[in-house]
């Protein structure tokens, strides 16, 4: 636990806060990409401790939140098929689709399993040859290597009753979409530490250059975040726009070579629809030609119908950092974790959930 205790040290926190207060002379808007970073900021009360001139805006780095409604509907359709065992990370279960969530479908008897690793899903396929096991392969680049590995593994073992419903999303195209938006207010980014652990930092240089925007690869603990904020603000105050690596204990410049090779073995880059944002070109992974028999979209003829987002959910504006959760008229009223209108209220990394669970401003209780 040494890294954790060092990076949670209250004295180090206070020191970085002092330094940040000392160097901040102008108002700056920073976006932390990853939902885990958002939660850490809110949960540790860091947002209230930063100088008022610094505005933290919460980015679309919650893979659950950005998974489009149509993909949830696809997963729900698969779960309802009598011989399908739909396996998923726990987070995805509560996200509402057009009509229902996977948790609701599970409670009516569908075979939906919560797993911690896609390799378990391959094991389940081996143990249950009469079932078709489908793994709901969601996430950023962070979870892509393990999902790809499950396909390679199944292929090597000759397991044919396994497939993945791939819905990976990529960070750099999302950052470009945000920076390219005419309403963009972001001055600097804290890039997602675990995504970069896999992918390295090289793909961020062209973005920093093109948009003259500092990008600091940052971890998740309080001291990580404050170091990252300090490094970003220092660049802004000095008029610089480089890529820096705060999370050096986890992130190497070239990333994790084996993980990247595994991704390349199974996936190709394709366009992806992001919930609340729209389609971003070349922003997702799909299963490639070689492993197409493990692509659930080709194995099954999925009838998911028209994806209907709740029109009152402003998750797109939240995830682009244009609005804060508390600015949503439904926040805490018709939209609460027990009855969410959209994914950011449900997911453990969603900005709305973070504010609801941890932030101190009172949330109006709904009248009964």
């Amino acid at each position: 636990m040494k890294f954790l205790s060092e990076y949670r040290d209250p004295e180090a926190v206070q020191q970085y806060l002092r330094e940040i207060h000392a160097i901040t002379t102008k108002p700056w808007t920073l976006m932390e990409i990853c939902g885990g970073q958002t939660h850490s900021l809110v949960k540790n009360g860091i947002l209230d401790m930063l100088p008022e001139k610094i505005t933290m805006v919460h980015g679309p780095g919650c893979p659950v939140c950005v998974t489009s409604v149509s993909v949830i509907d696809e997963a729900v359709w698969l779960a309802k098929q009598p011989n399908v065992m739909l396996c998923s990370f726990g987070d995805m279960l509560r996200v509402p689709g057009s009509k229902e969530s996977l948790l609701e479908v599970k409670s009516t008897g569908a075979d939906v399993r919560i797993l911690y690793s896609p390799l378990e899903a391959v094991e389940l396929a081996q143990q249950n040859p009469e079932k078709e096991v489908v793994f709901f392969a969601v996430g950023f680049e962070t979870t892509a290597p393990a999902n790809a590995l499950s396909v390679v593994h199944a292929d090597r073992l000759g397991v044919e009753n396994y497939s993945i419903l791939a819905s990976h999303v990529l960070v750099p195209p999302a950052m470009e979409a945000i920076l390219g938006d005419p309403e963009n207010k972001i001055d600097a980014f804290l890039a997602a530490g675990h995504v970069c652990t896999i992918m390295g930092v090289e793909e961020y240089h062209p973005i920093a250059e093109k948009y003259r925007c500092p990008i600091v690869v940052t971890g998740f603990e309080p001291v990580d975040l404050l170091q990252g904020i300090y490094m970003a603000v220092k660049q802004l105050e000095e008029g610089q726009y480089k890529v820096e690596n705060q999370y050096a204990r986890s992130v190497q410049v070239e990333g994790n070579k084996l993980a990247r090779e595994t991704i390349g073995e199974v996936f190709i880059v394709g366009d992806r629809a992001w919930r609340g944002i729209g389609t971003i070109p070349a922003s997702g992974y799909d299963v490639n030609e070689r492993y197409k028999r493990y692509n659930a979209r080709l194995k099954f003829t999925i009838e998911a119908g028209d994806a209907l987002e709740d029109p009152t959910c402003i998750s797109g504006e939240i995830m682009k950092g244009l609005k804060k959760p508390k600015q949503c008229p439904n926040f805490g009223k018709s939209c609460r974790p027990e009855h969410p209108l959209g994914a950011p209220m449900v997911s453990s990394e969603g900005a709305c959930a973070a504010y609801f669970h941890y932030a101190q401003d009172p949330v109006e209780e709904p009248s009964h």
Partner: protein
Amino acid sequence: MDFANCPLPKFDFDTINLGHGSGGLLTHRLLQSFVFDVFGNDKLDQQHDGATFHLNGPVAFSTDSYVVSPLFFPGGNIGDLAVNGTVNDLAMCGAAAKYLSLGFIIEEGLKMEEFWAILQTIKAATANAGVQIVTGDTKVVEKGKGDGIFINTSGIGLVHPKARIHHQNIREGDAILISGKLAAHGMAIMSQRQGLGFDASIVSDTRNLNHIVSAMLDRFGEGIRFLRDPTRGGLASVLNEVAGQTTHGLTIRQSALPIDEEVDGACEMLGLDPLYVANEGIFACVADAAIADELLAFLQGEEGSRDAALIGSVTAEHPGKVIMQSRIGGKRVVNYLTGEQLPRIC
């Protein structure tokens, strides 16, 4: 399983079947060997439809059902929970449990060996707690309609004469204490769930709390304002219940929360918050600030509460809300758990 002290009776079947719940000969034989011979006491031996007895004074009555999976986990089994859980609920009312009922719903196919082990555990737990099983029921359901075994226990006991335990008695400035380390039971269960496979020596903290509560009330009486054991939903749920029922706010300090390093590590790894993880052998206590230090010293001197800690206080600020000061000095709201805690993706 080791039954050196009390070997499994010779039986015609290795597993429970529907016949054992039919009320006929098989039921009779099962109950005789497994229940009456194990728990024999003057009330149970009457083998009436119910137990009759006198109790002099105000009584507390409680019920709970136990559906844990897996049935056997590091540190205990469902039998421990079934006894300690109800004994503890009564203790939280300031009552010393005296008699329990014991109801089983058994899924066809449960191994006799497992049923025997659970009963032996219940016997030991009742002896430890100083309570008697005086009435009960056994049903058997078809395979697929249960989860091995479900148990219900109801308990009755006399309220301690000095107990003044009610949320209405909570005052601004009162101290909040916890009697032991958090999250052990929930993480012990998690470590057995399929697919986790982390090597850990985490054991459930299941234990009875009636003796310590009785001693505490003997000594501190109405200085003890409120007690509750943070089972499902964890400490956060208990604190929110208190905040919701009173007009006060509660403040706690993250750095004061006692937790075993290995348990904390397991929670970190799975993205679970220890505040929401179940406990089975500790209680939260709201007490008069004037006796808080003495109460803490008393708890720390007793077996089963050596890790007791003072974790916060009742305040006039933020009424109805529980606020936690984080280790690094910031503040956050501690809300109710919504749904199941689901380990996160990445």
